[in-house]
């Protein structure tokens, strides 16, 4: 059974997402997790977890930050808190946090999430041998590589089927530094500010960029939308589809999620046709924010074209 995982910006949005069939809600606090639509403090997170579990759904919490000493010392306490809240799984990218999870011997399943670093089956299986129950595959792994990779996996993988694809994380406040240099005041440099950069001589490109407590983040020029290739994703098979609403319209994102749920259900029934895919793809595109485009990212890139 394919599981659809969606990030959330609020409890209300989580309720709406679950109502349209999303199986797992992805959330967290930015002190421990990366690039989240909302930073849920412990009180908010407890409320969210309660709502999710009451709906009979699962909660996946991000513990995937790159931890320096000042934060790693708080990871044990946070993991204990999440275990006590019966969180269904966490995503972790820092091996230090995995070590802590295992030292604490908590009943808290983890999936490995090393962002762009997770690119081969042997690496996924390495983490599986270290207790991971799954892994988040990098966005830079094309379909042709996935065809070879998936049969070798010992645990399932999660793939970004919709949303903004992160392509850079700096520990430096790159926007603050720039605006300080040109001595221009900006009220904010966060995601809500909606800043983009474009490549030299390519004004049509628009890479989102923002700062938060984890540094500066840059995203691919277009959001990922694998709806046109959802049959291929299903057939691989990749069983965990991640929908990231980081830059999505809050209401539009629910419609996007509903489209992927429909695709998933029709695939399970063997009833997904190319015409239906086209209609669902249209729903995804229609609900994109007016300043964002979609494409299939690296999925259809020929690996031979990557130098």
């Amino acid at each position, binding site marked *: 059974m394919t599981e659809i995982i969606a990030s959330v910006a609020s409890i209300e949005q989580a309720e709406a997402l679950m109502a349209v069939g999303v199986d797992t809600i992805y959330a967290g606090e930015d002190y421990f997790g990366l690039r989240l639509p909302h930073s849920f403090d412990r009180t908010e997170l407890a409320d969210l977890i309660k709502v999710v579990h009451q709906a009979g759904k699962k909660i996946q919490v991000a513990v995937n930050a790159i931890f320096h000493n000042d934060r790693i010392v708080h990871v044990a306490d946070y993991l204990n808190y999440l275990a006590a809240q019966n969180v269904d799984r966490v995503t972790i990218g820092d091996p230090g946090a995995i070590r802590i999870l295992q030292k604490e011997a908590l009943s808290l399943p983890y999936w490995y999430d090393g962002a762009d670093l997770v690119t081969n089956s042997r690496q996924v299986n390495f983490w599986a041998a270290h207790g991971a129950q799954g892994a988040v595959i990098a966005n830079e792994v094309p379909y042709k590589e996935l065809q070879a990779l998936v049969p070798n996996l010992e645990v399932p993988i999660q793939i970004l089927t919709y949303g903004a694809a992160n392509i850079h994380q*700096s520990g430096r406040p790159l926007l603050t530094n720039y605006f300080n240099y040109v001595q221009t005041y900006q009220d904010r440099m966060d995601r809500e500010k909606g800043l983009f950069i474009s490549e030299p001589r390519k004004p049509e490109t628009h890479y989102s960029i923002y700062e938060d407590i984890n540094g500066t983040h840059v995203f691919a020029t277009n959001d990922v939308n694998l709806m046109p290739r959802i049959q291929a994703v299903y057939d691989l098979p990749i069983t965990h589809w991640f929908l990231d609403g980081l830059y999505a319209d809050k209401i539009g994102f629910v419609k996007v999620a509903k489209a992927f749920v429909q695709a998933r259900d029709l695939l399970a029934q063997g009833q997904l046709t190319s015409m239906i895919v086209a209609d669902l793809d249209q729903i995804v595109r229609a609900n994109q924010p007016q300043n964002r485009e979609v494409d299939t990212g690296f999925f259809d890139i020929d690996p031979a074209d990557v130098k």
Partner: protein
Amino acid sequence: MKQLQKPEVLAPAGTMEKLKIAIDYGADAVYIGGDAYGLRSRAGNFSFEEMQAGADYAHAHHAKVYVAANIVAHEGDLAGAGDYFRQVRDHGIDAVIVSDPSLVETAITQAPGLAVHLSTQASATNWETLNFWQDEGLERIVLAREVGVAEIKEIRKHTDIEIEAFIHGAMCIGYSGRCVLSNHMGLRDANRGGCAQNCRWKYDLFEMPTLGDHESLLGQNSQGKTEDFSMSAVDMSMIEHIPDLVEAGVNSLKIEGRMKTVHYVSTVANVYHKAVADYCADPEHYTLDPKLVDELWKVAQREMSTGFYYGTPDENDELFGQRRKRPRYKFVGQVLAYDSATHTVTVQQRNNFGIGDKIEFYGPEFTHHEQTVADLYDEDGVAIERAPHAMQVVTFTCDTPVAKGDFIRAQEVKRPVSAR
């Protein structure tokens, strides 16, 4: 007197020539690339036979050789990795530097006896992470460049695994490994040796309420010109802070730059070897010789800073605006012989130089001599004005004894184009 653990100076060696020079100039260890799994596809990578020759040279000089195999592998890249690591081990290499856990596991399980170091590409930033990898059997961790001196001291309290830290050279602007700008902007895999250094490009920065509706936020620099947005770091130099790194318990001080020149490798290895040796010999009375700093500026490609070692870098740690003008030096030759009876030096030319040029000789152990070229003769003893030909052998008078192998540099001077 205070007893200190003297850290090794680890230098880059893109070629066999650079390997030997780095060791001659004081490096305690060098790192090289092999034919596979390395991140510097354009560096002069070593065959197994060359690895053996390099290791033999290093070991004869009490130095070590490490092989970088720090790609993040994709499916299909890993075939033969076990055999590769066994070959590396059997050709005298002291350790491999890896980042992909699949390669870590392969090296440890399939090439027993080969030491494994975790690359900075894996972004190790806390002691729990270091201990995780130590439990896996690794001997050393190359810290992320984002780790500060105070953090290293704290890490050292909680782990006894060897710590390696970058002290000099170019820096990624992002967490190493967590950047695929190059993949997305040019289909060049940053984590498999294809990085196009897109971070150093000049970007527009804008708000865009609707597609195509750019509202640029670019500002102006102090010259009143539009300053493009960039993500370009100045280079690192920790020459003024060697005591801090030694006291923090760093075991290996790493110099970046497998693509850099012989001039760079010899100068930087020489300088850091001298600073570390001087400090560890007498820490209580150590002061930094300003000449060492001057030496580093002679091979500097960019301005320099201490990166994250003393806090989060600000705008002064990035390359904005006009570059500061500084004297540029070129490598002009290498000493083949010195005749103390006639005070004549025989030199193999590496860059055009001639009579009237102010040149500097420098050698291992920081020997240094400056003079102006007063006479010049070709191999037949014919007087000439300049030595314009690559690898040309020339002689000239040098009153101070210099040693075979010493290098010669000269300040780059823009000469007026002569009328024809």
